[in-house]
């Protein structure tokens, strides 16, 4: 990963004027939703943006390459600075490294197992796998607290796992079993876990962005209006490059910046919206640039490098938690499989696939940890073995779990099981003299 080309001058590790006491205390005196709030143009984020703009001519040439391989912009400056300043010279501790490695292995092994189970007919419908993008999910979500929220897309299994939803519950959901995290009522594209603050699972492009923005809004509302002083919860909105051409993306960047909401917009730019190349779909393919356009920092990071993603994620999540507003992070990544398991994946150039396969984020982390003596080959092997067992166990558990009972069909239409849902007899419960007894179990 040390070979990633350096381009960006984003200087997260430098003290940002934005984070300074002066700036923050000034903000305190401002109205919560002050529309006149000025953009902190002195931010070095934005400073870096200007630098990037100056070199846009040469950059665009690079971007004209449909494979965009040479345009991978990284935050290697951050890395270099860290190396220079840090006494240990390392980007991660052993403990952190092992957690990160385990989570990425879990994501990969789980999805590989999903493919097997799909082809064996154990799961059905649309199943979108995450292989190749693990550095993004792990790099961001493992930095969150349980109270923080994650809003995902139809490619949501691994986000759920990173957020702590047990592999058993996710696999059972995919098998359509009653032990699934949504009792088999959600399915592959609709993972929810209230306990883990995973709030979907949205199957439509752009649909999750306003919902995530609303979750961030509620954190701010709880702190400012309901006076829950310790509510510093952050929301991460994950979505892809294709979504960045959808209006809801722009609407929410605007409102999140306007109201300074604690959210990070995480673009998983895997270069392809099903069969539509990002280069063929987007007038200016540098998505991160849209952040500064709305008055928030925009950052591009090598999404195949979990350590770089972590550095960027730490800063962005920290900004949100400190009440300094949203950040747009473009993670350049790649999916190793087709759009879904039903996608023959014929449009992507084999050379492009090979290029990114060689940059496998898991292999890269493994190499880093071993080269820096953070872990031995044996330790990592032990993690892989443990995860294989976890995934095997999840499959066994899902396979043995019962299908939802017939009575479950009509439950959960409404929040109150004693409310106005439809009873087993097909009539509205409020029409049934006994409806106050309730029949649904949640």
């Amino acid at each position, binding site marked *: 990963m040390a070979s990633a080309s350096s381009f960006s001058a984003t200087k997260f590790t430098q003290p940002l004027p934005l984070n300074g006491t002066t700036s923050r205390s000034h903000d305190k005196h401002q109205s*919560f*939703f002050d529309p006149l709030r000025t953009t902190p143009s002195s931010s070095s984020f934005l400073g870096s943006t200007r630098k990037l703009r100056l070199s846009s001519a040469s950059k665009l040439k690079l971007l004209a390459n449909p494979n965009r391989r040479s345009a991978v912009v990284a935050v290697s400056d951050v890395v270099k600075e860290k190396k220079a300043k840090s006494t240990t010279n390392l980007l991660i501790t052993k403990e952190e490294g092992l957690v990160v490695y385990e989570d990425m292995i879990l994501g990969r092994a789980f999805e590989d197992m999903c493919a097997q189970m799909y082809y064996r007919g154990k799961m059905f419908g649309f199943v979108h796998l995450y292989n190749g993008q693990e550095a993004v999910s792990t790099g961001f979500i493992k930095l969150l607290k349980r109270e923080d*929220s994650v*809003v995902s897309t139809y490619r949501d299994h691994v986000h759920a796992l990173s957020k702590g939803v047990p592999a058993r519950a996710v696999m059972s959901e995919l098998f359509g079993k009653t032990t699934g995290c*949504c*009792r*088999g*009522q*959600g*399915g592959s594209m*609709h993972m*929810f*876990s*209230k*306990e883990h603050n995973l*709030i*979907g*699972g*949205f*199957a*439509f492009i*752009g*649909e999750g962005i*306003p*919902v*995530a*923005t*609303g*979750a961030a*809004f*509620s*954190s701010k*509302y*709880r702190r*400012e*209006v*309901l006076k829950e002083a310790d509510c510093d919860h952050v929301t991460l909105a994950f979505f892809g490059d294709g979504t960045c051409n959808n*209006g*809801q993306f722009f*609407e*929410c960047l*605007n*409102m999140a910046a*306007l109201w300074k909401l604690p959210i990070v917009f995480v673009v998983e730019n895997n270069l392809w919206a099903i069969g539509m190349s990002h280069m063929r779909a987007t007038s200016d393919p540098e998505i991160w640039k849209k952040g500064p356009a709305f008055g928030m920092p925009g950052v591009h990071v090598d999404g195949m490098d979990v350590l770089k993603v972590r550095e960027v994620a730490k800063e962005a999540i920290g900004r949100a938690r400190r009440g300094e507003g949203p950040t747009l992070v473009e993670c350049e990544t790649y999916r190793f499989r087709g759009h879904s398991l039903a996608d023959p994946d014929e449009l992507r150039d084999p050379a492009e696939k090979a290029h990114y396969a060689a940059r496998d984020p898991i292999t890269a982390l493994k190499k880093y940890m071993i080269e820096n003596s953070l872990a031995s080959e044996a330790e990592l092997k032990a993690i892989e073995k443990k995860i294989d067992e976890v995934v095997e166990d999840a499959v066994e558990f899902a396979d043995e779990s019962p299908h939802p009972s017939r009575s479950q069909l009509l*439950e*959960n*239409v*409404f*929040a*109150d*099981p004693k*409310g*106005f849902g*439809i009873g087993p007899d097909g*009539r*509205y419960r*409020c*029409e049934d003299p006994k409806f106050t007894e309730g029949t*649904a179990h*949640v």
Partner: protein
Amino acid sequence: MTVRDALNTALDEEMSADPKVFLMGEEVGEYQGAYKITKGLLDKYGPERVLDTPITEAGFTGIGVGAAYHGLKPVIEFMTFNFSMQAIDHIINSAAKSNYMSAGQMSVPIVFRGPNGAASGVGAQHSHCYAVWYASCPGLKVLAPYSSEDARGLLKAAIRDPDPVVFLENELLYGETFPVSAEVLDSSFCLPIGKAKIEKEGKDVTITAFSKMVGYALKAAEILAKDGISAEVINLRSIRPLDRNTINASVRKTNRLVTVEEGFPQHGVGAEICASVVEESFGYLDAPVERIAGADVPMPYAANLERLAVPQVEDISRNHLISGISEMYMWDPCYYWGGTAH
């Protein structure tokens, strides 16, 4: 009390009672509401709870839904329900379905409110009735108040409800005054969702209506009374759940049914009511059921055409089923669908 004041006081009282309730929409704050429904609320509750949004229906509706996932109780105002089309993905997919998809983990206590249906002279894109659109979707509750009592009781019920509620107001009713009892004015007043109200009892024919058409049905009933016909008028109040019991009990008494709505005839509220009555009370019917509905055309602009395109009082009172006049009136759906006059 006007319907406008009824809605305003209901919002005020519920915001006062529960700090989790907040308003969001276009012009709800400094402008005091496009139709002044939110008048005074910005001053009272501040910009943190009365949020003027940019013109971004998909964005702010989704934000409301996300806030509701996290336990807040948003009231989203559409300047008109016609604009809810820009946000229907969030009403249907993010709000209505989440409780089910999450197996009861994510309830969505949110209210979508605003004027619905035909106003006056605003053309096809601002005159659509969306009652049946939302009423066909499981997971939503759809309410349509007529009087000030309805407006207060149903809006308070909607805000307190743990599920997404589509609350369909009518611009032309906002300024109308209705007498209200002391009970209605009490801050604890609330109406049950899913229950219709018999506005006027009668024995010869049942007329169902909602929103503005309740007033027309009551006027038609007065005219019919002069001819010795006793009409029972049912104010549906709730389009979903639909109070099938009250409707069927009434039809079993009167043996005749006329449904009235401003929306289009095909797959309309009347169609659903007729189906329910045919299924449950077929043997009690002495005559075919009749639907009175808006003309099956996009709303024309010209005032005379617009008047022809929505039901009028005389269309109800002169309906051949009720009055015994043998000729078919233009409100018979066959007229529109067949395209030929009788």
